């Protein structure tokens, strides 16, 4: 079963951190359709966080049609994310390896590489191409 | 709530019960022997001869220390109750913050205090009653012998016999609680309680007790064995000997009055009379001269027959004070303590 954690330095509100962790688990195949999410009580006891935060995160996930609450039983995953893309992971990963090698050859250090990558992701998210 | 009051009191109750058991056992064990010895005095005293007094005095002297210790015990019990049960009752809770535990259950503060006062007052009175009854029983033969030197109405004896010690215990306990509540520090409250109790025990016989019943006022002729010379302020146990039926009484005052009944400081005896002549002073003749001039002793005292009415009134006063203090506590507990 999924175990949540909180990253105080992430700058994200706690409920969004939970949402993101569920999405990541779905993307990586750690969580599959039919799996049960930990109960609010379990999350709350483990992390010492406000139950309203967990409820809010679960509501958000429900809203995204990723999970469904069955009253009195628990919250269950209703669909998986990126199970198709999972197959493409290894190919993409090797391409990324090649790209990283080229970047180092071009004289970039790790910090510059990361900055470049984050900037590109953000730019694409905004819709314009760098 | 009673459960909590009893549970918190448990350790103190065990300790007190153990101490009481030891004391009662000791008194019971020695009390029987004491009685046997006392009955053995009877034959000597049956004839009422002078040897009776000698034997009786010897009997008393032998047991005098134990007898005084028993009186001290009865006098100390209320102080102990006030200091160790009363003063910490609220003060310790406030000091350790546990009053927050008690006051945040579904019970009002007033009810909490009321139950505690009720349970512990009963325990205090029961302890005092047991002690007083046992000591009174144990002491009764000695009390009879000692009545000349230690009359029952004398402040010391009066406070250690009858029902008054029970009322003292109640008062001491409630006083301790009140002080603890106002001072809110256990040690300080305990010290203040002791000080106040001693003050009360000193002031009450001086200021209040003489007025609990109208004293008997009587006059008697001035004579040799009735006074030590001409000291008029002397109020002594030996005064009992000069007034028939005043055995066991508490003498409040003895003064010299002139024929009109006015209190005087000095008696104008004749310069050539038996009171003045240094060579040939004749005390008996001197007293006779005073008598002829119409001077007398005037004595005020509380006779033994006032013992129970005065015990009842004194107890009532202390119970009344206790109730007033308890009322103050119950009012105060609802107000902000800090």
């Amino acid at each position, binding site marked *: 079963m999924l175990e949540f954690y*909180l990253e*105080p330095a992430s*700058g994200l*509100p*706690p409920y969004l951190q939970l949402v993101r962790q569920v999405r990541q688990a779905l993307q990586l195949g750690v969580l599959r359709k039919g799996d049960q999410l930990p109960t*609010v*009580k379990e999350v*709350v*006891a*483990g*992390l*010492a*966080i*406000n*139950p*309203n*935060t*967990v409820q809010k995160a679960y509501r958000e996930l429900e809203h995204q049609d990723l999970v469904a609450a069955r009253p009195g039983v628990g919250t269950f995953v209703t669909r998986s994310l990126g199970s198709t893309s999972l197959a493409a992971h290894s190919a993409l990963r090797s391409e990324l390896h090649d790209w990283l090698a080229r970047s180092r050859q071009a004289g970039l250090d790790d910090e510059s590489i990361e900055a470049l990558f984050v900037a590109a992701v953000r730019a694409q998210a905004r819709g314009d191409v760098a | *709530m009673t*459960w*909590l009051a009893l*549970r*918190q009191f448990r*350790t103190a109750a065990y300790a007190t019960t153990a101490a009481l058991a030891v004391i009662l056992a000791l008194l019971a064990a020695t009390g029987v022997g004491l009685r046997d010895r006392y009955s053995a005095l009877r034959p000597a005293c049956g004839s009422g001869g002078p040897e009776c007094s000698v034997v009786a005095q010897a009997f008393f002297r032998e047991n005098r220390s134990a007898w005084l210790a028993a009186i001290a015990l009865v006098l100390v019990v209320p102080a102990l109750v006030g200091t160790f049960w009363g003063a910490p009752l609220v003060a310790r809770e406030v000091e*350790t*913050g*546990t009053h*927050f*535990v008690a*006051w*945040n*259950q*579904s*019970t*009002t*503060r007033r009810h909490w205090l009321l139950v505690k006062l009720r349970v512990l007052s009963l325990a205090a009175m029961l302890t005092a009653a047991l002690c007083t009854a046992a000591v009174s029983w144990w002491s009764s033969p000695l009390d009879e012998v000692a009545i000349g030197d230690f009359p029952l109405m004398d402040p010391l004896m009066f406070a250690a016999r009858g029902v008054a010690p029970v009322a003292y215990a109640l008062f001491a306990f409630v006083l301790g609680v009140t002080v603890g509540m106002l001072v809110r520090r256990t040690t300080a409250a305990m010290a203040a309680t002791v000080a106040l109790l001693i003050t009360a025990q000193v002031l009450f016989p001086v200021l209040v007790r003489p007025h609990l019943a109208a004293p008997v006022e009587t006059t008697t002729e001035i004579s040799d064995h009735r006074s030590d010379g001409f000291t008029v302020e002397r109020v002594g146990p030996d005064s009992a000997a000069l007034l028939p039926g005043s055995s066991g009484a508490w003498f409040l005052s003895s003064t010299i009055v002139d024929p009109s009944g006015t209190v005087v400081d000095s008696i104008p005896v004749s310069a050539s009379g038996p009171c003045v002549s240094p060579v040939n002073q004749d005390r008996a003749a001197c007293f006779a001269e005073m008598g002829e001039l119409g001077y007398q002793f005037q004595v005020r005292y509380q006779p033994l027959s006032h013992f129970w009415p005065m015990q009842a009134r004194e107890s009532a006063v202390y119970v009344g004070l206790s109730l007033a203090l308890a009322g103050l506590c119950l009012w105060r507990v609802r*107000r*902000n303590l*800090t």
Partner: protein
Amino acid sequence: MTAALEADGLGLRYGRSWALADCTLEIPAGRVVGLVGANGAGKTTLLSLASGQLTPSAGSISVLGGRPGSGRVQLAKVGFVAQGTPTYAGLSVRDHLRLGAKLNPAWDDALAQARIRRLGLDPRRRARQLSGGQRAQLALTLGLAKRPELLLLDEPVAALDPVARREFFGSLMEAMAENDLTVMLSSHLVADLERLCDYLVVLAESRVVLAGSVDELLATHHRLTGARREGSRIPRSHKVICASHTERHSTLIVRAREPLLDPTWTVSRLTLEDLVIAYMVAAPPDRTLLGVAQ
């Protein structure tokens, strides 16, 4: 939904100084309310007034619709774990639970017993033999098993190590998830409050300087950084909470009613801790001028 706590002009005075003054609040039910402020800012006073331990000298306070401490019914609705989580040193864990059972009509013995078992507390142990964390848990058990609608906690974890603190808050939040409970707790540890609270009350110098839902507060407060300039350049829709300046640089913490369009400012998010500190530093309230600090 009725408010868990409503205060109007609430104040408490000791002699001539006010421990809490002019406190007006309306705290919705079902929240975890964090009470923050420096020592002596009035946190304990507010909690004591809400639990009925103290009676106000000014204004009014209503807790779950009733006057605090007004009787058994009201007392049963509110739990209070006082500062230092006091317990009876000479009483055993079992005695404490019996105390709770005897004195509270709604006592949930199953819950109390289950908690004690799960915490691994030996029922025969006296409170003085317990660790600080265990005592705090015992006090919390007493507070929870009476089944209050509002649970007040005054610095409950001040004396606990990080592990005990996490366990304490874990079980508090677990209880909150199971029951309809409003929790109001004071703490110095804003990092803890960040995880726990969805409502925040900041006290400074005996006054409430900030109160509101955490989401809303974080959404409306920003840090502005940019070239040094004077306060007149800030739009009126933005209230400056505190400001600091270096020779060429200004940093402002502002409360905004609408988005700031001036592109010369860099706008960044605040953490709850930033927010709390901004208000604590900026006290007394309504100080809107620039250049307060430094």
